[in-house]
């Protein structure tokens, strides 16, 4: 009974904090969209909105995976390698320009399972060997790139499989299939986070792992499961990139490791764990994608675009987080 009473004030303070923090990134997103719409007539077209959603699709799926790992209070730097491996594997298993295999959906499934397995390795290393996730995931990324380079073998496999190709080109109600896949993934991830034991425990592990362990929960298996799930998301993301680019590339995931972490943090999923979530991160994904798109459309010189984008992100996050700076742990 006593501990419950003790936690009550802390909890209510947290709640108030959450509401302010939750509102920040979406408001920043709205403001940026508004400003860009005023500055560029092309930005506010329906076509461009669909274009932005399409461009955000892969990052959104990858960020779903990253988000769960961040909720744990861990970090995942393996997306680049895991995606490289999956991209190459799916490209050589479906109908392609290099061999006679034509496994179709089974090939896609194998690529995703491979990615999940690599994620599982990360998780096992973290839990069993107690190696910091920073190191294990970096190592697993290198393994993934190694696998990818082996499969690549000097010749890029081009994807011929019409159904996989249609992921990037086919449209339903104006949105590309890729966008729909991303929407389903985000909803699924949100459901897992909100309504399943895995998601709730991930949040709790990030918030107070010791408390959870003391109360009799075996934390290890949940951690491994989270890393595995993250791997699966990276794998699906890789299949989506492969469909977009039309061939299996070792570097297909190169930019996603840090883009996904940035998106998650910008959206309000904190690196310390236990705070934020899938929907927060998705707002972050949209914010980054809208910026990349908008800066090109309003004609910012490419020489300063990177800098301008970084500046806007920093300002947006700082402004959004200002009301809770004194208790925002990331500030340290």
């Amino acid at each position, binding site marked *: 009974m006593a501990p419950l009473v003790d936690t009550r004030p802390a909890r209510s303070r947290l709640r108030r904090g959450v509401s302010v923090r939750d509102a920040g990134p979406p408001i920043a997103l709205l403001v940026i969209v508004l400003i860009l719409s005023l500055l560029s007539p092309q930005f506010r077209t329906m076509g461009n909105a669909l274009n932005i959603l399409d461009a955000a699709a892969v990052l959104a799926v990858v960020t779903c995976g990253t988000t769960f790992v961040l909720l744990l209070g861990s970090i995942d730097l393996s997306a680049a390698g895991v995606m490289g491996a999956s991209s190459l594997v799916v490209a050589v298993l479906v109908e392609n320009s290099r061999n006679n295999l034509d496994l179709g959906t089974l090939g896609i499934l194998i690529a995703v399972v491979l990615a999940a397995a690599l994620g599982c390795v990360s998780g096992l290393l973290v839990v069993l060997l107690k190696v910091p996730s920073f190191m294990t995931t970096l190592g697993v990324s290198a393994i993934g790139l190694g696998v990818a*380079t082996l499969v690549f073998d000097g010749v*890029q496999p081009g994807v011929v499989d019409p159904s996989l190709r249609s992921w*990037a080109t086919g449209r339903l109600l104006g949105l590309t299939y890729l966008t729909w896949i991303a929407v389903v993934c985000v909803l699924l991830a949100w459901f897992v986070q909100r309504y399943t034991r895995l998601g709730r425990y991930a949040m709790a592990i990030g918030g107070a792992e010791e408390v959870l362990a003391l109360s009799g929960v075996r934390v290890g298996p949940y951690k491994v499961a989270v890393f595995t799930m993250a791997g699966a998301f990276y794998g699906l993301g890789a299949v989506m990139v492969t469909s977009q680019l039309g061939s299996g590339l070792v*570097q297909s995931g190169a*930019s996603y490791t840090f883009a996904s972490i940035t998106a998650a943090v910008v959206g309000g999923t904190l690196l310390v764990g236990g705070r934020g979530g899938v929907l927060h991160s998705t707002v972050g994904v949209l914010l980054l994608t809208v910026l990349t*798109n908008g800066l090109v*459309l309003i004609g910012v010189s*490419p020489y300063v675009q990177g800098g301008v984008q970084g500046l806007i992100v920093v300002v947006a996050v700082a402004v959004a987080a200002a009301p809770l700076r004194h208790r925002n742990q990331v500030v340290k």
Partner: protein
Amino acid sequence: MVMPRTAATLLSLTLAALTLTACGGDTDADGSAAAGTCDPSDVKLVGQVRNESNPYEASWLDGGDLFAASVGLKQQRLTYDGESTKQQEQIRQILAGGDTTCLVMNVLPNGDSDTLPIVRAADQAKAFLVTQWNKPAELNPADYDRWISHLTYDGVESGRQIADALFEAMGGSGGIIALQGVLDTAAAKDRFAGLEAALGQNPGIKLLDQQTANFSRAEALAVTKTLLTKHGDAITGIWAANDDMALGALEALGQAGRAGKVAVVGIDAVPDAVKAVSESQMTATVSSDGPWQGGIGLAIGYCVATGELDMADITDVQRAFFAEQFLITSKNAGDFLAPKTDPAGFKCDNVFDRVAAPLT
């Protein structure tokens, strides 16, 4: 700290003395005499590139293997994942391994600043070195005994060649967008300068927009989609500073339903691009001939090491030069579909056949 420095001073004094003696003309013992005495079977061949995960550099190492096989040797394939420190570490290890006077290295330095330490280390270990692509302008192979040659390609020329091909395909008028490489690299700057030069001579062509896609296929896809939204049907041509970006742009055109209506050009002649050119999906690309690059550096070093080529006979131009590059269009794409290397090009009499111009 003091001891090594004293040693270094002594060493450089000795070297200076040796150079003076060499200038005096009585012996050339340290330089070319040793250079020509390697038994062909004693020569060790090393090829070093960033990684094997892109078709261009993989084909480079394959070319090195091909040359090695043609003289009955094996090439040691090294990759450093695009990390400067790792490259230096590999060079140190190679040069630390026993007798290095018959060692031949064909190296792609990661960046301009990485070239000097590699050159110094090779010179000190008396290993033969050929470098490609990157070196600071003021660094000259002629100032070193064992750094035989540096070869690279004229990016301004390749940028202009593909621009000319693009403008021709567009019928001399229309709007283009340019996809630039990593903006602070010499390759990106030179190639874009070539485009600007071509634009100057073609007033009918308008550069609607230029963006960087960092040499990446994925980024090019996203940027091109955005630019297609911005400029719509005004875009009738896309100039990309490399093939990966050109291929990304091609995908973007396909997804926007504009495939075949916009001419696309790139540089590097990666297999996918050559295929696209041969199928007339792409207009042109430029080949530096990766397999040749991988073979030629080893061939030059081998010829000097075995004495078939005398360092004294190698001209200043041959020691630092732009190599010949080839414009690939639908007319000749068929010849480039299967990368083939003519071993005759690696014969000691022919190793400098592709010198196009002195390095400026």
